[in-house]
């Protein structure tokens, strides 16, 4: 019923209040909400009030549109290291959907007729290796793993070794969930990246941070810390079917400059989509 604002001659002050509320309950956060409202109020002063709804959508879409380079073969990801597989390192806090995302991403590339190998880099959590192995078997793709308790960096290194020797297009490395405020765990992640770089300094080409769509403002702090540690190249937002909101993405793109590359919408293997800002904004404002 915010649609009431669509074609009105004069914008009621109530419209701005209701837009603000809509944004806040969608986890957009206080600062970004204020910025959006004031930008729109200025824009609307100069234009025909009848176009205000398009203006709202346009402003929100532009906040989410971070230009980034990708190649057709691996869209929306990029492999600019000749003669090497695309290495994707997947990280994030506990339970956000990293392992499930890897299965979906593997299938996504498989459907593009690319070859994929998985690295069971979560050598810490109970049954983490079994969980990823299930998906490897279901997708009939190779997986490199060692025993629980082994060195995560060693598994990552071996996975890339296999990818190179078997000429596999994509190597996706799973890591254990970790709280970003635990320094030793963040350092471990830096070690995994360092070991991967022994293959080639520009590996891994992609470091994807998984953010849970149901999370609130803490997602911003998570993104800051993980980016400071290993330079995140893109975010995948999971569990969009649980909430359809994930308003924190505006802060991730406009304040932190990190592109959203994927979203997942359920527990099925094909519930994955490259991020589409217009589609996302339409659903948010529904």
């Amino acid at each position, binding site marked *: 019923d915010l649609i009431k604002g669509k074609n009105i001659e004069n914008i009621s002050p109530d419209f701005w209040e209701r837009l603000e509320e809509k944004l806040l309950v969608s986890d957009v956060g206080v600062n970004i909400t204020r910025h959006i409202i004031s930008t729109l109020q200025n824009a609307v002063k100069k234009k025909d009030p009848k176009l205000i709804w398009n203006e709202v959508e346009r402003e929100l879409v532009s906040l989410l549109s971070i230009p980034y380079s990708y190649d057709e073969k691996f869209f929306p990801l990029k492999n600019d290291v000749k003669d090497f597989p695309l290495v994707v390192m997947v990280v994030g806090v506990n*339970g956000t959907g990293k392992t499930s995302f890897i299965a979906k991403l593997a299938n996504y590339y498989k459907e593009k007729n690319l070859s994929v190998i998985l690295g069971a880099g979560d050598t810490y959590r109970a049954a983490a290796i079994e969980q990823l192995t299930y998906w490897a078997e279901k997708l009939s793709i190779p997986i490199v793993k060692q025993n629980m308790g082994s060195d995560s960096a060693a598994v990552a290194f071996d996975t890339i070794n296999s990818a190179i020797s078997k000429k596999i297009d994509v190597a996706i490395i799973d890591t254990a969930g970790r709280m970003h405020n635990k320094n030793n765990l963040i350092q471990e992640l830096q070690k995994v990246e360092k070991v991967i770089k022994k293959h080639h300094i520009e590996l891994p080409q992609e470091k994807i941070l998984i953010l849970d769509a*149901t999370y609130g403002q803490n997602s911003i702090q998570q993104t800051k810390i993980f980016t400071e540690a290993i330079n995140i190249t893109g975010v995948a937002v999971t569990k969009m079917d649980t909430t359809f909101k994930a308003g924190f993405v505006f802060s991730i793109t406009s304040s932190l400059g990190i592109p959203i590359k994927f979203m997942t919408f359920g527990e099925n293997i094909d519930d994955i989509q490259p991020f589409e800002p217009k589609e996302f904004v339409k659903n948010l404002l529904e």
Partner: protein
Amino acid sequence: KLVDSFSKIVKGLSGKGKISKEEIEQTIREIRIALLEADVHLNVVRDLTLKIKEDVEKLESSEFFTPSQLIIRSTRDKILEILGGEATKLEINKNPSIILMVGLQGSGKTTTTAKLAYYFKEQGYNPVVVAADFNRPAAIDQLVHISTTNSIPVVFDKNSNSMNIVKKAVEEAKEKGYNPIIVDTAGRIHVDQEVLDEIKKLKEKFDVEHTILVIDAMIGQEGVSVAQKFDESINLSGFIVTKMDGDTRGGVALSIRYITGKPLYFIGVGEKITDLEVFHPDRVVSRILG
């Protein structure tokens, strides 16, 4: 951080003596922002700031307190009151007592199931856990691993289903004297009535004493809807908030208490079996307010 921003508000106010109406408005506004940034639900923030404002306006002419002191104390008191003043004990009265662990995907149910069993074991009980998640790959392996590593008996059968495995667990409990029976279930979304029905059916068939919602401390505004929908559909006993060892302010603890009035029994503070703490409201107020 809410702790930083709230102490900034407090520093701005303390020792100021009498303050103007504008300053009261400004302070209330800052409190509102601080609470929203702590992921407290918008409706809860509205009600709370309204109540604080009423408090302050009624007593503005008090000779004992300055408006600044009132605002600070009123905020603390109201939040503490909502959180429940004191810890609420999870009581077991049935034998065997069946406890269902429910919640969104990835919230920490499996880990918390084992932690809760460990807690009861330390309290002198003889708990058993039940692997009733037949949806997630290796879910049963996960619970079996954590349980056997910590010498907690576990009832599982990869070829069963939730109804039959709980039946088996109840039989085994009566036979071996286990109590309580803690059931790990599959993650499910609050907006899918069909999956909520699975829990309803379990409660119709078995004498469930407690249904506990396991919820992630990092959840945002959706937390209230999750708590409400689960509560309306399957009637919760209370909550456990996990991952409080992160640096999220955990405003969801306040919101779900305010909206449902149901107790918050424990918080999860890490991945180890011992990382379960009884929820102490005063400690979480400090976290939310500093």
